[in-house]
């Protein structure tokens, strides 16, 4: 079957096994066949293609789609009805509620002329979901040939091994067929098969080589690899399209595409961003380093005190309570040498997960990490509740616990690091006005504010005279230090005609 070989690559032995199992049209075959193998190893594709090409009467049902008994049985019966009826007649919809009725109706439907004397195949894809349905369904399907006394074979396709399907009291054992995973050579062959006609096969094969080099250790799923290959090919061709390199310049092409692929692994492969977003980025040629995925922390903007509450919660969850005194009090005194067992690595809190802590402890830590005085107002408490709603904290135990609520911090260290160092718009901003040519840059030594730890600069208005604002990291200095330094700067101005407009404290 040359036609079949072209449709189905690298699966010759499985196709021939299946063909020989099916035998001729009127032959009996195994009552049930169980095919297992990794996802994207061709089970569904090969079975469907084989049944269609050989034009055997078959019904194909997906157990994810038909997740209840009734949906499953009705779909099988109605599809069979369609098969057996002539093209003009519109068959009536069959309803079926129990497996008993199914067996009876199945016997009726298969009496039709076009289905007599031929093996009817029922293919159940994602068969692992059958285990969660009624208990009699799986054993019933395995024995369908015996129960209906007809020439029918049930084929089950699944990722999970047969041992996990077998019911406790046993059942009719199906014939188990394994679809092996594709080797790297096979993957190359299949992926190279869908090269676009504008480019040569060798060019595409070199690209596939690079792609597999990056992704093969992580993922061997053919569907994912194909998707990635299609998405990233335009980027690979870019130098050739722009004329910067020829098709044979593999080193240059590789250097161009490899960081792009690595970035793809962190974003598109993890579905952090959608494929259309990825394509847009490629077209716009923006730097992929700027990508913000779904779980990036930058899309969560927290108010000032909420950040501190979250940090305090993280500390409370991951530090044991006895160390609080040491870390957060100014005068903690000596720590007695108790029988501190050297922490066995496994019990490190970072491995076991966050521990719950009472509200009082949270507030105590909060007061000690925020410099200014924090009043325990409703503002603070409502912020805690918002954090719980955002699922950054969780409430442990029941709502109306008598001795106060207990919380747990459910964010990771990376998240905390991200919000702690996020500059935000908060801080002290100093506003200046001066002629544009005199405006100091952030890097230059002439900028009087460098000494005060100034970093960011923003232009409010640009013209012959510009108004600009510079941010100062006042936390490091303390407000009074800054004011006195500012006075000095104004008095000993190095820049001519510079007017200091004022300072603005922004959150």
């Amino acid at each position, binding site marked *: 079957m040359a036609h079949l070989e072209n449709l189905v690559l690298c699966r010759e032995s499985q196709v021939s096994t299946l063909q020989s199992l099916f035998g001729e049209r009127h032959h009996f075959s195994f009552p049930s066949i169980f095919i297992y193998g990794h996802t994207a190893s061709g089970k569904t594709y090969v079975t469907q293609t084989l049944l269609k090409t050989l034009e055997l009467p078959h019904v194909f049902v997906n157990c994810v789609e038909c997740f209840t008994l009734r949906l499953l049985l009705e779909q099988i019966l109605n599809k069979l009805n369609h098969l057996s009826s002539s093209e003009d007649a519109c068959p009536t919809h069959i309803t079926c509620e129990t497996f008993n009725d199914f067996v009876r109706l199945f016997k009726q439907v298969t009496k039709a002329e076009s289905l007599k004397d031929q093996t009817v195949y029922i293919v159940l894809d994602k068969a692992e979901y059958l285990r969660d349905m009624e208990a009699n369904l799986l054993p019933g399907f395995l024995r369908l040939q015996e129960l209906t006394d007809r020439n029918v074979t049930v084929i089950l396709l699944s990722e999970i091994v047969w041992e996990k399907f077998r019911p406790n009291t046993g059942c009719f*054992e199906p014939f188990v067929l394994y679809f092996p995973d594709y080797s790297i050579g096979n993957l190359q062959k299949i992926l190279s098969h869908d090269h676009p006609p504008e480019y040569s096969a060798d060019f595409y094969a070199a690209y596939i080589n690079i792609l597999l080099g990056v992704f093969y250790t*992580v993922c061997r799923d053919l569907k994912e690899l194909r998707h990635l290959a299609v998405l990233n090919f335009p980027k690979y061709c870019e130098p050739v399209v722009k004329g910067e390199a020829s098709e044979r310049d593999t080193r240059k092409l590789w250097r161009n595409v490899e960081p792009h692929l690595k970035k793809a692994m962190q974003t598109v492969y993890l579905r952090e961003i959608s494929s259309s977003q990825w394509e847009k980025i490629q077209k716009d040629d923006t730097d992929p380093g700027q990508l913000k995925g779904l779980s990036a922390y930058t899309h969560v903007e927290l108010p000032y005190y909420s950040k501190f509450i979250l940090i305090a919660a993280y500390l409370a969850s991951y530090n044991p309570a006895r160390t609080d005194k040491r870390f957060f009090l100014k005068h903690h005194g000596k720590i007695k040498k108790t029988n501190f067992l050297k922490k066995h690595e496994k019990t490190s809190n970072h491995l076991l997960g966050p521990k719950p802590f009472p509200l009082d402890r949270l507030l105590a830590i909060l007061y000690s990490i925020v410099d200014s005085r924090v009043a325990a107002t409703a503002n603070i408490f409502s912020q805690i509740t918002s954090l719980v709603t955002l699922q950054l904290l969780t409430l442990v135990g029941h709502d109306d616990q008598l001795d106060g609520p207990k919380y747990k911090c459910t964010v990771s260290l990376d998240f905390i690091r991200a919000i702690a160092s996020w500059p935000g718009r908060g801080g002290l901003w100093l506003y200046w006005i001066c002629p544009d040519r005199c405006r100091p840059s952030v890097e230059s030594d002439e900028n009087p504010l460098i000494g005060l730890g100034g970093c960011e600069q923003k232009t409010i208005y640009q013209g012959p005279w510009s108004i600009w604002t510079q941010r100062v990291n006042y936390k490091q200095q303390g407000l009074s230090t800054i004011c006195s330094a500012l006075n000095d700067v104004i008095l000993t101005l190095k820049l001519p005609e510079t007017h200091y407009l004022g300072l603005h404290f922004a959150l």
Partner: protein
Amino acid sequence: MMPKECDGPGVRMGILEPRQMTGDCFFSSGQGICSGFQFVEMSSRKLKSNNLKHSECLSQVQRILRERFCHQSLHSNLFGVQVQYKHLIELLKRTAIYGESNSVLIIGPRGSGKTMLINHALKELMEVEEVSENVLQVHLNGLLQINDNIALKEITRQLNLENVVGDKVFGSFAENLSFLLEALKKGDRTSSCPVIFILDEFDLFAHHKNQTLLYNLFDISQSAQTPVAVVGLTCRLCLSEDRSVREVLQKHFNVSKNLRSLHMLLMLALNRVTSSHPFMTAADLMEANQLCSMDSKANIVHGLSVLEICLIIAMKHLNDIYEEEPFNFQMVYNEFQKFVQRKAHSVYNFEKPVVMKAFEHLQQLELIRPMERTSVNAQREYQLMKLLLDNTQIMNALQKYPNCPTDVRQWATSSLSWL
């Protein structure tokens, strides 16, 4: 209620022991089929030498043998169950001809010939003229009639009494059943049709609510109103099997004293027979045996990516150090990081989300399993899991893993020298 406890004149027990399936009948059955195949081949070859006829008769032979292996049609020989057969047929005759009520429970492991036995007995019974006119059969199956109402409807249907019942409403199951049996009585009340009830997957009927059907059937068989024979077929739990390597049929016999698995083996060998390869050879049988005895979990591990293999090795080390205590993703990631930072040259230090995706793939394949149901509030990284592979399986699978990087392989073997 188990029928064993039911004493009384009518209860007989027939038990099929697996021992009965002795080596002799196993071999003779297998060889008989193989040689029978050859015999048919030879004789037909003598008659015609035309190529077309050759493939046609091959097709015929395939058809017959496939029907025998797959469709379990009746053979003429019963191996090893002659005693039970005599017993059973005796019992059924007594019900059918002399109007005595009886009940039988046939117990045996899967594939030991229970259905075949009863079908044979019924076939022989129906050959007697006065039986075939009188006796009615009702075939019930625990997989199909999952509750007693469905069972009752099925009984009504099989006795062709749907019209008689019509729209009547009955107070209880018992009333309904006795009405059905009354309706079977012929003109004079002395003679009524004996009914044979065959209940397949009997243990499932015993799980119905209040076991109404069983109570009523056995009740009727005691009360001698209508002669009723109740035949139950059930299996005991099959013992687990262990595969060993020896000569094919002998090996297979040690593995499973199950005629069905022999049929499967022979069927696989039969598949290799085509017009170009018209005789079944020993090589075919060996290959078929290979197919039958694969270790499926090892196959699945064969298809994992290198990152996933590294995670499994990390879990193996955690199990070794902490003696099979459950672990979570964070711990596995930690172990993996230790390996990557210290010894790995070929494995790139992947980011946490990428490793998490590989971990979730392992969970999807059911190679690891959470200890308790996922709750909404718990973070995925800290959920406790268990590995469902043992050390020997992992090491065997690693041996066969294609292109395994050497440092990964070394990491698998030397665990404690790490810390």
